[in-house]
């Protein structure tokens, strides 16, 4: 490597990239430089144009104008194969994996045919051992955790000896431990001279990992900075172009009545490789936020399913809302009960929203009864649209209109809509799973504030999340779920992140492995 970095040729240089979609300019005159071995963050709110830009670099999409220089020479990429030949590897936000196939088959599909010759599974094992990314080539993808799935994508890239690795929100679905492992790998790659273009909303991570950052807003580059010298807050404000208002929580413990109660609940998981719930107890009082922490796959999905009514429990009285047993009621009946129940499941597309239906139809599906959007069996289209528009406005969802389908929104924007849809209904009980997954800083703050405000106004809020920072920010009390069991909830101000972290790992306060029985 050269001693004088100034004269070094950038590995990748973008000049004046512009790309417009009908109704929106996704990239406007974007320029960017990534040096060899540099970990370069690409920051921006949902819909700022980051994904469009990296899709262009990876050859998935073409730009309307502008040029791309690779090692100082202009290139035009016809397709991702051409990009891979140059040395560009990409880990997608929504993984491009095939569930019904093995790890090896998935990897073999994503690399050039020449590389699949010989014994691929041996090389997969070699690379995964070399970079500390354990993977079994013969496992089927659908049996793997999200973290393991991401490893497939990373290993797939590494097999091609990339010189530029693009990562689109790689940590949004990982546990803290998995994030640590990933960072080790990335730092090591950077030392070996691989450039990394890193997209994330987690600004603290950017500070610890990235050398430089380019900040985008509304499709344009608005700033460049060195993350080390910035605070998460200052970067968030550059992204938003306005001041960030942090959510404010009252630490006061509420003595409100118990709104949502789960008593000695046992439930077998309905998923392959799922976690059974074992004698779960919890109480959420009116006026408080109860946070449930836990590493992914410890029963959160199962807990959410029994709380929403997607999975019915054997004894109706195991789950009560305002004293009414609801264990045998389905989601629609639960939503309509007394004070009203708001439910925000985890997967945005296909679970939280019907992808091909418009926003107002998706709003209608959840709010029909409570918001009286239905009249003698007929849909009140006007009222439904007005409801959806209210959600869009209040939660600043970026969309051309409520008649657009749910899957036309970027992930974070759709999440805002799904959370907003429930909160606008003013339910007395709210159950949310990963409320701010993949949502930008500004919107995260507003979603969290909205949850806190709901509690302050007297609702009982149950928030299940892997994001400890989030839970400490919003919760009055925190409990931990581990291997399907719940710990006792403790006031948030009395516990530390470390204590919660130990509980999440299944280690009791005295250092013993809990639940060893």
């Amino acid at each position: 490597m050269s001693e004088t970095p100034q004269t070094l040729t950038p590995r990748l240089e973008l000049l004046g990239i512009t790309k417009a979609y009908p109704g929106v300019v996704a990239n406007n005159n974007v320029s960017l430089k990534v040096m060899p071995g540099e970990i370069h963050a690409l920051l921006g709110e949902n819909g700022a144009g980051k994904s469009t830009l990296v899709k262009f670099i990876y050859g998935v999409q073409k730009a309307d104008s502008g040029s791309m220089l690779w090692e100082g020479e202009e290139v035009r990429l016809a397709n991702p194969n051409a990009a891979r030949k140059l040395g560009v590897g990409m880990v997608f936000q929504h993984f491009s994996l095939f569930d019904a196939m093995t790890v090896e088959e998935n990897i073999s599909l994503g690399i050039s045919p020449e590389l699949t010759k010989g014994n691929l599974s041996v090389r997969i094992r070699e690379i995964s051992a070399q970079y500390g990314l354990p993977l079994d080539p013969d496992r089927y993808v659908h049996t793997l955790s999200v973290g393991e799935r991401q490893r497939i994508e990373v290993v797939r890239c590494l097999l091609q000896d990339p010189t530029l690795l693009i990562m689109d929100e790689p940590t949004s679905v990982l546990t803290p431990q998995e994030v640590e492992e990933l960072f080790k790998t990335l730092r090591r790659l950077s030392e070996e001279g691989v450039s990394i273009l890193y997209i994330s909303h987690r600004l603290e991570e950017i500070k610890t990992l990235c050398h430089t950052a380019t900040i985008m807003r509304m499709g344009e580059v608005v700033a460049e900075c060195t993350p080390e010298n910035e605070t998460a807050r200052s970067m968030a404000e550059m992204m938003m172009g306005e001041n960030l208002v942090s959510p404010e929580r009252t630490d006061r413990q509420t003595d409100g009545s118990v709104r949502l109660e789960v008593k000695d609940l046992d439930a077998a998981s309905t998923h392959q490789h799922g976690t059974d719930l074992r004698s779960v107890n919890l109480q959420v009082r009116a006026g408080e936020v109860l946070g449930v922490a836990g590493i992914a796959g410890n029963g959160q999905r199962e807990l959410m399913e029994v709380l929403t009514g997607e999975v019915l429990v054997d004894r109706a009285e195991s789950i009560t809302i305002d004293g009414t047993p609801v264990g045998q009621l389905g989601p629609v009946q639960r939503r309509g009960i007394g004070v009203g129940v708001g439910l925000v499941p985890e997967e945005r597309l296909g679970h939280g929203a019907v992808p091909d239906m418009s926003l107002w139809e998706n709003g209608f599906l959840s709010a029909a009864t409570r918001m009286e959007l239905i009249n003698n069996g007929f849909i009140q289209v006007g009222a439904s649209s007005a409801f959806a528009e209210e959600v869009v406005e209040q939660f600043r969802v970026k969309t051309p209109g409520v008649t657009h389908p749910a899957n036309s929104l970027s992930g974070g924007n759709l999440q805002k809509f799904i959370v907003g849809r429930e909160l606008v209904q003013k339910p007395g009980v709210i159950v949310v799973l990963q409320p701010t997954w993949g949502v930008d800083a500004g919107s995260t703050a507003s979603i969290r504030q909205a949850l806190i405000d709901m509690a302050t106004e007297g609702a009982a809020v149950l928030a299940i999340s892997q994001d400890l920072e989030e839970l400490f920010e919003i919760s009055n009390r925190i409990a931990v779920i581990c291997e399907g069991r719940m710990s006792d909830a403790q006031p948030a101000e009395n516990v530390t992140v470390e204590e919660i972290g130990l509980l999440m790992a299944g280690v009791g306060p005295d250092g013993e492995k809990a639940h060893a029985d």
Partner: protein
Amino acid sequence: MSIDWLVPAILTIVTAATPLVFAAVGETVVEKAGVLNLGVEGMMIMGAIAAFATAVSTGSEVLAILAGAAAGLLLSLIFGVLCVYLQSNQVATGLALTIFGLGLSALIGHSYVGATFDGLAKLDIPGVSDIPTIGPLIFGHDVLVYLSVISVALVAWFLNSTRAGLLVRAVGENHDAAHSIGYSVMLVRMGAILFGGAMAGIGGAYLSVAYTPLWVENMTAGRGWIALALVVFASWKPWRAFFGAYLFGGITIIQLYAQGMGVEVSAQFLSMLPYLATILVLVVISRDSAKARLNAPACLGKNFHVSG
């Protein structure tokens, strides 16, 4: 009961099953690529008339089979262009293809009603084919029977052990992922559709030049639909579909013999038997719903278009 009865029965079972094998194996590939072509019946009947017409006018067996394949392929080409490139609805287009094929074949076939053709020659290896029982059972079929077995083996090998087969499955499993990795979803699907069309055409050709060497309007008599059902009930596995085809063929023939022997069950019930038994058996062997879901191409019937 004497074995003299059994050998010809088994030979008829083979000829009854072979057209289903061709059509089902072709459709397996099509569906593995994520395309649902309900036009199998139409492609089969077009294959049947094209092959029969060619056989009668040229007398050449090879040309007849090729004509059958070409007719199926041409019809599937229409389907492919409409569904893959013009994004038309697969179900509606497939149904239209069947109706179109049945009508067009009747029109073309009008002048061939009553024409005759000797039928596909049986394999005759001197010495070997004359061995009692085993000779005719293993070495006494026409060439298409052997071809059908080979095609099942080849398709099974192609889907499970080749990179191209992996790509076909990938496109059917998650077309968005396949596209973002950089494969041409449309090209792969088009190839699969054309293969399925040619195979259905050969299946139809077998009916009109080997099974019953004559032309009768609507002579496929729902076999295309049976082939479609076989694919699904066989959970998209070529060998299982092959087994299903033989089961169906077998029970069809056995119930005919039973009717001939005057079994005291009304004929209508016996005629139902092949359908019931085939569905029942394949449902039972595919009863593990989790596994069945894994085998089912996740993008089956969904159109793909490049967004943005």
